[in-house]
């Protein structure tokens, strides 16, 4: 697999390649547009958001397109991260110790690979919800083409679409909090791509050990 080397000449570690960062933001920006416009349609108290987003009819027109770009980006993510996101036997121990993670007692956490089980949950949560949001969203995009005797599809869509959206919002809140305020260094990793060696060792010990091994074996 040809890829950028993990260990950078400046002594830092490449966490996310340019391609990965690009795909991340290709998902994030349309998701945020869909989220905000979706919230406008969710509650009359938030309808003003649609006006800010270009007008109420424009927001209705763009919301599904933003969703389509989001789903494409999530599919690309599945292509590049899908294998690394699969559950491994050590995940159970990680979840069993989740309280230490929450309390910043990271020395008591089992070591994580490139993605820890929490990140895997985030990924699969977004992946499956994106899939359901697309299916139900297509129905809500073109309700006029659903024949009357198949109206059950519309009725399912109006309830499943917001449920899936709420689930992604739960993931989104935690993800944004962790990526910006909580886990210092991780926001830089998805902007500039790199983290410090100490960060990689602390948060993704198994991964860090492996790339160290790879780079030494290459020499």
């Amino acid at each position, binding site marked *: 697999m040809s890829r950028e080397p993990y260990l950078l000449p400046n002594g830092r570690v490449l966490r996310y390649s340019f391609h990965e960062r690009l795909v991340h933001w290709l998902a994030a920006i349309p998701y945020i547009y869909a989220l905000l416009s979706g919230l406008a349609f969710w509650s009359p108290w938030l*309808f003003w958001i649609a006006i800010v987003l270009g007008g*109420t009819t424009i927001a209705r027109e763009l919301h599904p397109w933003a969703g389509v770009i989001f789903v494409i980006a999530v599919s690309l993510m599945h292509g590049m991260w899908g294998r690394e996101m699969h559950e491994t036997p050590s995940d159970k121990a990680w979840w069993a110790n989740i309280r230490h993670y929450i309390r910043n007692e990271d020395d008591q956490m089992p070591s994580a690979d490139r993605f820890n089980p929490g990140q895997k949950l985030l990924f699969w949560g977004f992946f499956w919800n994106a899939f359901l949001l697309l299916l139900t969203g297509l129905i809500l995009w073109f309700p*006029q083409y659903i024949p009357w005797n198949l109206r059950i599809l519309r009725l399912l869509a109006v309830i499943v679409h917001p449920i899936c959206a709420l689930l992604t919002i739960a993931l989104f809140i935690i993800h944004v909090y962790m990526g910006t305020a909580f886990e*210092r260094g991780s926001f*830089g990793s998805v902007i500039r791509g790199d983290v410090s060696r100490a960060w990689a060792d602390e948060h993704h010990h198994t991964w860090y050990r492996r790339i160290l091994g790879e780079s030494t074996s290459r020499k």
Partner: protein
Amino acid sequence: MSQAATEIVRISAHAGSVPGAGLNREFQVCKLVDTTTCIGCKACEVACLEWNGYTFSETTFNNSYQTMPETAWNYWNLIKFNEHERDDGSTMLLMRKDQCMHCEDPGCLAACPADGAIVQYANGIVDFQEANCIGCGYCISGCPFNIPKFSPAARKVFKCTLCNDRVSQGLEPACIKACPTGCLHFGTKPEMKELAEKRAGQLREHSGFADAGVYDPEGVGGTHVIYVLHDAKNPEAYGGLPKDPHVPISVRLWKGPLKWIGNLAIVGGVVGVFIHYLRFGPKIVKGDEKSGQGDNR
């Protein structure tokens, strides 16, 4: 009907009683469609198009009198024909003028997310305000009668207004005016209900329709368009008139419990992570804080 604004309740510095005070006026309007005297002439369809400024749509032929399968965004009034086979083997042509039912509990209004796109007037008319419509089509899903229709050109949804523009000026709806047999009536809800019940009674007693009755479905709180049917036990035979229409349960769940659960969850989530930050603070990797590599960013 439209006079609610001019009814006087109190008068300043006025000696004596207020003229008309305490008068019980009935504002609720109703259209009565007597399917038993409809001859399927489609005059109501033409009047509807003429008054609302639409032209005829292309018709389809399916070996019956049915010219179009259902109402359209620019065709709000359509007679549904059904060649109904009766128990004795004879055929009966059922004809029902289909249009917006102007529900007391409108599913379209419940489902609509756009401020001011659907209004219900005190006289019972449920009207779309296309200027405020965002074209999302949720009303299409909310309606139990398959009435709101999306216009691809306008990218908004349209339906029968019960001639709100005419009714507010004291006129009857255009369809009523055109009906040659008198099967269409317009008046207050109690008047129309009474007339309908009387007609249903006639059908039961004198015409051999033992199950004749009035269609004014409770599930949507009653409607401001009511039908007299030969067989009120089988409204489905009249071009798919739902037996027990309701605002869809999924719309109710979505606009009711799910909204509260969702709002609490979103606010709870944001407050939750904030409190977590106050309590536990950030994860700063040991070594980074002194390394000057800026990983506290």
